[in-house]
């Protein structure tokens, strides 16, 4: 398998504290890769650095062979990377359909003139709404399409985040704790959805704390602790790795 995302020596300092330090990682095209580690290990920071919400102190990130340096967050989406947020960030006073439709910005590529003048623009918007409906159907939220996102439960918001991310037609999907706070049934549903997403050829890179889910779904796992990579490999290897166990157990004692 070829690699789709390459991270070399990624480092981020907040003041004197290293949130992420000399992190190397390689995401292979089409795989499901999980990033785990105790709280505060730097996992979300890594996602933020990849999507350019935060700027690295050092390090290189390349996607499909091209560097992601100097890009603005919306340009990351253009390249084909979409992400969800650990603490869901949906557009609260917009309806579900609008939440998903607005993420099709780059598919529709509106500009002022065409919006006002061209009838094909309107056609594209109608198709966009239809596609948004399909996305909502995929995550089982279609019946609530016209409701405001603020009215959703946490689990539903997480599913909406997934729909929004898929709406951007990504090649690489970054999921930040997609099942946090969900009951087992909801978790199962998400796992199924991720499976389908993977079958469509989308690479999935996810952060999670739910070990059962991580072990069940991942092809490879990377473990982060205090901003440094401490293990990498197949689920069976990682789960037996004493360094990893120490990281988690040690933390629990504190």
């Amino acid at each position, binding site marked *: 398998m070829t690699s789709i995302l390459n991270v070399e020596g990624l480092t981020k300092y907040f003041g004197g504290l290293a949130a992420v330090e000399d992190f190397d990682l390689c995401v292979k095209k089409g795989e499901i890769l999980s990033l785990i580690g105790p709280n505060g290990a730097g996992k979300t920071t890594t996602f933020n650095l990849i*999507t350019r*919400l935060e700027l690295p102190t050092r390090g290189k990130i390349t996607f499909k062979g091209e560097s992601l340096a100097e890009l*603005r*967050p*919306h340009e*990351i*989406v*253009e390249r084909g990377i979409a*992400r969800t*947020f650990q603490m869901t*960030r949906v*557009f*609260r*006073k*917009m*309806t579900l359909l*609008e939440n998903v*439709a*607005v*993420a*099709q*910005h*780059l598919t*529709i590529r*509106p500009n*002022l003139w065409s*919006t*006002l003048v061209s009838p094909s*623009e*309107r056609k594209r*918007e109608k198709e*966009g709404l239809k596609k948004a409906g399909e996305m909502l159907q995929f995550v089982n939220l279609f019946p609530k399409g*016209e*409701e*405001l996102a603020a*009215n959703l439960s946490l689990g539903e918001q997480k599913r909406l985040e997934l729909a*929004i991310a898929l*709406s*951007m037609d990504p090649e690489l999907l970054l999921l930040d704790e997609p099942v946090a706070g969900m009951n087992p049934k909801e978790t199962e549903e998400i796992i199924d959805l991720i499976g389908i997403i993977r079958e469509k050829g989308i690479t999935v890179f996810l952060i999670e704390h739910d070990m059962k889910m991580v072990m069940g779904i991942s092809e490879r796992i990377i473990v982060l602790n205090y901003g440094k990579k401490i293990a990498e490999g197949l689920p069976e290897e990682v789960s037996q790795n004493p360094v990893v166990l120490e990281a988690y157990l040690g933390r629990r004692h504190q």
Partner: protein
Amino acid sequence: MKILGNLLILAGLIYLPWTVKNPYFLHIIIISGIFVLLASSLNLITGYTGRLNLGHAAFYGIGAYSSTLLVMKLGISVWLAMPLAGLITVFFGILIGIPCLKLKGSYLAITTLAFGEITRLAMMNLVTLTNGPLGIRGIPSPPPIIFWNSALISFESKTSYYYLLLALCLVCLLIIKRLLNSQIGKTFLAIREDEVRAGTVGIDTTQIKIMNFALGAFFAGIAGSFYAHYVRFISPDSFTLNETFTILTMVVVGGLGTFYGPIVGGVIFTFLPEFLRAIAEYRMMIYGLMMSVAIIFMPEGIIGILQSWIPRRTQKGLKLE
């Protein structure tokens, strides 16, 4: 059903001048139309995109002065000057919008306020250009529109101005409505709800924010230009902080972030002072009070209240009725 309703309203609006005997009353209606445009333009920036612009009167004034100077100093026809004035205002909208890109909340409010005041000071002090505090008199009215059969519409009576304004408002509001329903309209809302998140769904927030300022500036500039050729006298006194606050009150009480809110607000707050002549000195006080009460108790304004009376299955977001 809805189309029938809209046609009836349109017919009513077209028929209106014939029912109004008092020219002063027609004048108030025309002024309210101008403020409908002003309030709608501010609503684009503040209501839909969530960026408070306390310098909006500056756009109004730039439109008015640009149009006036184009006609009186460069001899351009009013019909050409009006859209040009809109474009000049757009230019300033972009000029002001760029430094404001990284600002939000109160930073943005104060900076736009500063720009508004600087603009007003410029109007006062660039005497060779603007005639300073004395203002400019005798601004030409639009030249008559001559048809192929030599029938003409002249702008000596208020009625012609009314129809011109009606046409302007219809075109501008239709454009605004189309924008708000479009993909671009959704990006406005997204930026308002969560600007950082908007970036992560592929929206170039810089481009959209500038476009948004430019649009708000354009419609305000058009309103200003019409005002100049209607009242035919302008001075910096018409484009002060008071005007901005009045327009803001119209938007907030009418319904921040709704399509009809500014329309309702514009009409109500133009007519209200007329009925409350006796307590004119309490006017700004009452506006202030209403603005505070509205944002606390009825954040969606009068439109929000009306909407809540209509039984609905679920709440809607951007849907415009």
